């Protein structure tokens, strides 16, 4: 798009990178947690379920503040990460990705869990009688059959990440080129005199990106569902 300033491009690129990284990093954990919630029975399961869903109902600022407390350079995990590996996430784009992933996590898990619960477990026991051990059953039957849920979950989380504001700004602040994602850039432009046009342009781009994500998810889910059900897409 002509007329976009380098700073605006930076915000768009950063937003995409933060959201994609957050989704990619949380995907395996999402599958694991969804499997636990859908299949396992253990004491404290309802508490665990509530904790997973907490980011959905908590004010995002609170989530960001907790992340800062835990993952900040003086936090228990953040401090350890820095001393052991020299990794710092606070006030870095990686921290923004973590904040986005945490906020999108309940949506991701929910979609996956629903698709796991829809799987006929008798098909899995058929695989066992054919010689597949539990790990193989998961890889060759469960995972392909829950693919529609994985796609939906990933895209929901991605869309949620694109719009993430509160947790991000609390945890990693508003650093141009590092943590100033699209929503934070828009907010920043609305705060400076004469930034209205830029805010409007970026808002338009946000609409396009979100719409694109929704359309892509629609298409992918349709194909994944067809594949899992054995129809040709």
């Amino acid at each position, binding site marked *: 798009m002509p007329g976009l300033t380098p700073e605006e491009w930076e915000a768009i690129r950063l937003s995409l990178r933060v959201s994609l990284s957050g989704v990619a990093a949380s995907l395996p954990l999402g599958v694991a947690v969804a499997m636990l919630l859908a299949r396992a029975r253990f004491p404290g399961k309802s508490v665990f379920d509530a904790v997973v869903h907490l980011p959905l109902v908590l004010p995002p600022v609170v989530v960001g503040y907790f992340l800062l407390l835990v993952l900040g350079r003086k936090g228990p995990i953040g401090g350890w990460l820095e001393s052991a590996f020299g990794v710092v996430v606070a006030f870095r784009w990686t921290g923004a990705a973590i904040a986005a992933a945490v906020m999108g996590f309940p949506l991701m898990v929910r979609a996956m869990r629903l698709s796991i619960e829809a799987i*006929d477990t008798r098909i899995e026991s*058929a695989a066992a009688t*054919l010689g597949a051990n539990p790990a193989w059953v998961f890889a060759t039957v469960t995972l392909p*059959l829950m693919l529609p849920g994985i796609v939906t979950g990933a895209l929901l989380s991605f869309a949620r990440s694109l719009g993430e504001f509160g947790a991000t700004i609390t945890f990693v602040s508003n650093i141009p080129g590092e943590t100033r994602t699209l929503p934070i850039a828009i907010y920043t432009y609305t705060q400076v005199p004469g930034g209205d046009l830029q805010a409007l342009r970026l808002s338009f781009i946000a609409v396009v990106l979100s719409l694109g994500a929704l359309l892509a998810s629609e298409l992918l889910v349709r194909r994944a569902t067809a594949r899992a*059900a054995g*129809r040709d897409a």
Partner: protein
Amino acid sequence: MLEVDVRHRQGGFRLEASFASDVAVTALFGRSGAGKTTLVNVIAGLVRPDEGRVLVNGRVLVDTARRVWVPAQRRRVGYVFQEGRLFPHLTVRQNLLYGRFFTAAEDRYAVLDQVISLLDIAPLLERRPAALSGGEKQRVAIGRALLASPRILLLDEPLASLDAGRKSEILFYVERLRDELRIPMVYVTHEIEEIVRLAERMVLMSDGRSVACGPVPEIMARLDLRPMTGRFEGGAVLDTVVAAHDLDYGITTLAFPGGELECTGVDALPGERVRVRIRARDVSIALERPAGISVRNVLAGRIAEIGAPRGPEVDVRIEVGQVSLLARLTRRSAEELGLAPGRPAYALVKSVALDHRSVGYA
């Protein structure tokens, strides 16, 4: 060789089964809810019994006393489920090859091309299960189980979800397996017709218990088991040999130890072994040899046993030569004729009552 001796409780249901069999096809027979599927799940390793043991070809799969438990994936037990349970996301070819992948190379005896031609599934290979008919699905399910090169094949009512035409189609393929692959099979059913066609031995299940086990003709001839071996379709089962065909009339003569039977619709060559089921309600009894009668099978024998009457009916066992026939009469007839064990009598069977549905090919 299959040895089962297990006890298991599941909710309010109790399973108590004990039998051994070393024949090609062992049938598990009983009404729905008799515990047949639970028993098969125990053999396959999908249900862990509270107590007991299961051996296949001398290999211990479960022995609770010795704390042996082989998980399903290491049992090499082929299982054909009632509803097929094909993998919906894989093509027919991928479904077929699934179990083969997990079978060690030295254990593989099933050959893909052979199984494909045996079950006539070559045209289906690139399709997905959703695009298959019920009969096609079951054929693929059988092929998938076979290609894992199992040591024993369990078929749990594989015809239950099919219509009549598809049923005889699959029965034909199961017969082919039995005759060409020589793999021991456990065949679960509640249809006498299928047992007569396929099985050598049967295990009779009722309310979770294995009530009797033995050769099919022997079990079917026992009057004390009649309430469980089929009220309507039940009757004696005879192993016979085709003696002659009358092509003009379409009548086949079957020889059994001590007599002959004429029947219709038999599709076998002279000298071939044929098993025939004679429904008790198709057999009449006469005290003297009747004359001027259309019934073609008039078999001289002796009343051997009279069963306990049930309502207006009573079952009577007649020995003809070395075999037994069962006749279902009204209690009134039995009394008026003065039937009693030891009395000579004639068993009358219409030839048209013995059609292709009563016949199995051994």
